């Protein structure tokens, strides 16, 4: 005899399609054009930063860099849904969210240029730095969320990772923790459909990545990750639930990695133009611009001004970055522990040529 003991469904949300026409009523925040303009600015700014960073890498002035080209809506949407005192726990492709939350372009360039000071954000002091070991940041998000809960705060955490990361055990474990303790955390899957050369379908047989949530007994949903309105809306909804004790959520944002994995990658080795080009028609910037234009809230002049402003900002950041004096070697010793142990002091003296 069989009985059904549990039922689940995964819903997909989209507000603004590729054509820039709203599909039904927009969420409240999106009825204010100023809000939408802010989101648009955030995305354009991110793209300008990405371009600059790639250019700096190509000319040997930055290390390997992971551009977020085409995925700006995920980062900007999730950041816009957060409060300043929430904590963001990123992977390595959410520059748009970091910038939105007040990490400076100079800091990001320092980090990607190989200088640890870039992770010593002056802005969001509690945000985690870029996380390279894929998926390993997810348990941190659970820990931060547990800390907030224990403190009785109504703050919450947003943790981002990619489609590839959803295969990592760390992510599964973090979801279990978040689920069992109803922690105030939103896991945003930046599903850009590729993990370096491994396409989404070769990553997992799961029909959606949102359903990773089901294994942990938490709600999961999918959004059009190229629709910044949908991303912000879904993350905001999940954050509201998290703050009110309703626990964790997985939000899968379906987008596409239009560029190479990083500047060290050549995506033509494993995917051809025919695969990529249709996705250019779905990318997040034009659709919001089209909609704003249709509202009369955005003009060619504003667009030109924004681009000029972003160019100026990234140029200034570049200049500041390049003008930053290098760190002393001493810094690698001084930050290892709160107090330098005797034996490390000896090494420091040897390394810095100041023999004891």
């Amino acid at each position: 005899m069989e009985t059904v003991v549990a039922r689940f469904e995964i819903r997909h949300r989209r507000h603004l399609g590729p054509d820039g026409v709203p599909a039904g009523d927009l969420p409240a925040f999106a009825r204010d054009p100023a809000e939408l303009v802010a989101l648009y600015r955030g995305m354009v700014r991110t793209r300008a930063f990405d371009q600059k960073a790639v250019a700096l890498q190509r000319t040997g002035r930055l290390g390997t860099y992971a551009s977020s080209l085409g995925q700006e809506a995920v980062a900007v949407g999730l950041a816009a849904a957060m409060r300043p005192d929430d904590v963001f726990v990123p992977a390595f492709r959410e520059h748009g969210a970091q910038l939105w939350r007040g990490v400076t372009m100079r800091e990001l360039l320092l980090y990607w240029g190989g200088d640890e000071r870039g992770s010593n954000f002056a802005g969001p002091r509690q945000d985690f730095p870029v996380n390279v070991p894929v998926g390993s940041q997810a348990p941190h998000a659970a820990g931060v969320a547990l800390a907030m809960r224990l403190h009785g705060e109504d703050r919450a955490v947003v943790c981002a990772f990619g489609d590839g990361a959803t295969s990592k055990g760390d992510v599964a474990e973090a979801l279990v923790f978040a689920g069992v303790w109803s922690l105030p955390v939103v896991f945003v899957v930046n599903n850009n459909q590729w993990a370096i050369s491994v396409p989404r379908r070769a990553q997992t047989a799961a029909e959606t990545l949102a359903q990773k949530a089901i294994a942990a007994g938490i709600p999961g949903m999918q959004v059009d990750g190229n629709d910044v309105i949908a991303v912000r809306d879904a993350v905001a909804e999940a954050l509201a639930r998290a703050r009110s004790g309703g626990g964790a959520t997985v939000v899968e944002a379906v987008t596409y990695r239009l560029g190479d994995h990083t500047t060290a990658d050549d995506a033509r080795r494993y995917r051809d133009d025919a695969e990529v080009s249709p996705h250019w028609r779905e990318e997040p910037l034009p659709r919001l611009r089209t909609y704003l234009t249709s509202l009369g809230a955005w003009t060619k002049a504003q667009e030109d001004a924004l681009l000029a402003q972003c160019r100026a900002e990234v140029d200034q950041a570049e200049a500041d970055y390049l003008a930053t004096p290098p760190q002393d070697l001493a810094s690698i010793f001084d930050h290892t522990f709160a107090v330098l142990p005797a034996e490390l002091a000896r090494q420091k003296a040897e390394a810095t040529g100041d023999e004891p």
Partner: protein
Amino acid sequence: MTERTLVQAVNAAMARAMAEDPAVLVVGEDVGTDGGVFRATEGLLGRFGPQRVIDTPLAEAGIAGLAVGLAAQGFRPVAEIQFTGFIYAALDQVVNHAARLRTRTRGRLTCPLVIRAPTGGGVRAPEHHSESPEAMFAHIPGLRVVVASSPARAFGLLLAAIRDPDPVLFLEPTRLYRAVREEVPDDAPPLPLDRAFVLREGTDATLVAWGGMVPEALAAAEALEKEDVSCEVIDLATLKPLDEETILASVARTGRLVVVQEAPLTAGFGAEVAARVAERGLMSLRAPVRRVTGWDTVMPLLRLEQRYIPSAARIAAAVRDAMAFA
């Protein structure tokens, strides 16, 4: 008089730290109602409540990562890993996160956590319950590694570890959990996390040991005393940062070094001790350094474990060898 076993001292140190600092939490598998499989956390749930003594799901990487997140928010989590045999899954979080959060953010975020785990063999435990992986952790920059060997030192070192602003791996030899009782008052002071302890002074040979090997080294020293061989016995206690000076000063007096470790020989922490002396104490040595260690085989199941673990007899034989040399 508050006589305590080592496991009771561990328990008392946590209780003391929790009473003093509301930021101290205990997390891990079975640390709550059960009080830990070795009873190290017994009574803490009742005393401090479920907000501070937290049973976790069965996931070691998750536990370590959770602790990183808690620590970054200012808590001082004391995470229990049930046995060192299951700590490997947590290693990624220790190497790539706990031990480097401070330096990679240049001090913005820090990681004041302790990972406690029972270690070593000798209690007829099941497979994977008797290993001694301390050397792997001692290689990790940014991590302190401490191994307890007596109730009083366990108390003082654990208290210090919990108060320390950086991550500490704190290992507790299961074999010593209930081996002896010692006076350990509730208000005993913390002990320094960069100091070795000279447990016995001697003039002929220096025995360096830690954890479960400390009583063996002491027993060997006692036996050798009857043969008129005088051994100095040093408990490293903190493997990292290493108190090289205490070792060098001792070897300068004795001229002979025998390092004892329960772990397999190759790339064990004993190699580091030997290397330091070969670098900075070479001219004091009157005989070759000797290491008495577990073999480079997997720790056998319980029937053969006593043939694997270095004994006082093997240690004494190594000292006699060194004495015979010169």
